[in-house]
């Protein structure tokens, strides 16, 4: 399989008889930007959990390139180059913005290397460039705890960039953002895609439209429809699910 391709086939997850994912199949090509939408309980977050190793599938194949993700833990999957931004932004409150990015920076992750770590000048420049990109250059020394909600979202996206992942999973990145911030985020994600694959889970259809890429609609744990936003929006099955019968 091509390196950097995310490949899900027949993935099912059952919690106590409840089917969160029902034989889900999905392929994300390297460099692709894909939006995933779906009503509540469609299995979007569970799908992310499966890809990042938080939840183990009951059945099915999950591969990234040639790596079987179902056999790896979260840290190993992240090391492989799959980054995730959570729905609720999680940054390290006790550390500064700069330190948050430094922790995310791609570098040896074992305790001994961390103990002997000295920040190289090139890495410092990269962190500073990222700080500028996410608009937090003047807050570099501030503790993350004092950031606003939007700033935390940005910081988390910045941390994702520092990881230099091949695949980014982004869960509701614009929740709680102003229109301007939303636009900015869409532009950023479009720019990132191309070098890496990006999967965005979002409720905000305007945002999905702004991304202007392929859309997958999930429903009851399986793919309901796939294609451009216009095609999907006119699919009668999608309309039925969203508007009720």
């Amino acid at each position, binding site marked *: 399989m091509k390196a950097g391709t995310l490949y899900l086939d027949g993935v099912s997850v059952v919690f106590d008889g409840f089917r969160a994912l029902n034989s889900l199949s999905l392929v994300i090509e390297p460099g692709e930007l894909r939006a995933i939408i779906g009503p509540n309980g469609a299995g979007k977050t569970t799908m992310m959990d499966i890809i*990042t190793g*938080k939840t183990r599938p009951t059945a099915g194949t999950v591969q990234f390139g040639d790596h079987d993700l179902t056999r790896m*833990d*979260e*840290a*190993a999957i*992240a*090391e492989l180059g799959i*980054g*995730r931004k*959570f729905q609720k932004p*999680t*940054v*390290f*409150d*006790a*550390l*500064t913005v*700069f*330190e948050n990015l*430094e*922790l*995310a920076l791609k570098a040896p*992750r*074992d*305790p*001994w290397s*961390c*103990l*002997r*770590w*000295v*920040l190289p000048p090139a890495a*410092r420049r990269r962190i500073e460039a990222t700080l500028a990109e996410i608009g937090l250059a003047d807050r*570099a*020394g501030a*503790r993350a705890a*004092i950031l606003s909600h939007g700033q935390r979202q940005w910081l988390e996206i910045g*941390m994702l960039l520092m*990881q230099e992942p091949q695949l980014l999973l982004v869960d509701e990145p614009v929740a709680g953002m102003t229109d301007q911030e939303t636009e900015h985020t869409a532009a950023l994600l479009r720019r990132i895609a191309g070098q890496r694959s990006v999967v965005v889970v979002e409720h905000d259809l305007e945002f999905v439209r702004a991304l202007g890429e392929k859309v997958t609609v999930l429903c009851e744990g399986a793919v309901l429809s796939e294609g451009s936003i216009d095609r999907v929006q006119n699919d009668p099955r999608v309309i039925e699910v969203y508007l009720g019968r």
Partner: protein
Amino acid sequence: MSATTAETPRLRPTRALILRGLLLAGLLILALLPLLNRLPPDHALHASDFIVSVSGKWMCYAMLALAIDLAWGYAGILSLGHGAFFALGGYAIGMHLMRLIGPRGVYGHPVLPDFMVFLGWTELPWYWWGFQFFPFALLMALAVPGLLAGLLGWLAFRSRITGVYLSIITQAMTYALMLAFFRNDMGFGGNNGFTDFKELLGMKLNTAGARAALFYAALLSLSGAVLLCRHLTRSKLGRVLVAVRDAESRVRFLGYSTVSVKLSVFVLSAMLAGLGGALYVPLVGIINPGEFSPGNSIEAVIWVAVGGRGTLVGALLGAFSVNAVKTWLTSFAPDLWLFALGGLFVAVTLFLPRGLIGLMRKGEER
């Protein structure tokens, strides 16, 4: 280290300086104590034997406090069994001291300690081999707590046992060890433990010179431990620890193996506690299974809480201040001490979550 990555507990420079000054002054006073002890008793600066001996003890406790702080304050691993690592370190050196008694025991057996003769044993058990050599005993004082912590931590961290579950398991560990060491046929002297030590490294233990040497050994080890912890907590590893403490799963999604991060700091912390115990036993001249009691471990946790967890100075401050109050209070109202200690648990958790150091930091937040 970059200028923007200041140390984790962010103090205003002046206060940081004051704290650092206090720390250095404290260490200096400690360093002078054995010398002041030599002054004539009526001299104003004379330090009594009692002061010297209790401060020696407290330095060992301070190392235990540092160890707990490293695990709890930085990595969020609240161990209620660190007293066990301390005791294991103490037992390792205790075994060496027992071997050195040689034929001077009550029964005069050339090799076997008295309690083994008393039990009718004729041979030294295999796990006593090698303890006649000081370097081996010292190595064991570090390795045994380290290995135990490694095993327990590996089992616990791997299956993501955190928070109170981990605390309870560590408490169960020290409880189980206490029960085990109370047994006579374990070969560790049963409930009497080890005592009546004669010498260490060629020094007679009951001489003033030996006491001063042990005191300085404790002071050096404590200073070394502080420097080591300081280096560790200011490194990126220290920041990873804090990140693990606050949002462990997020750290995992960043690609850090939190198991190995936590395991390494837990093992180091256990070894530090073991070293504290190893210094403690020659200073106080006795070790028994009571050291394993869960109450001891949790009392040590409260030293750290009182001083202020997540800061190294806090751990030291807590160990010294709580033990000073304990020594003072138990001398004239022993019944009150347990009330005071219990009250300390309540007061610190309710009103001083950041400890005494937190008091200094008040007003700096936000």
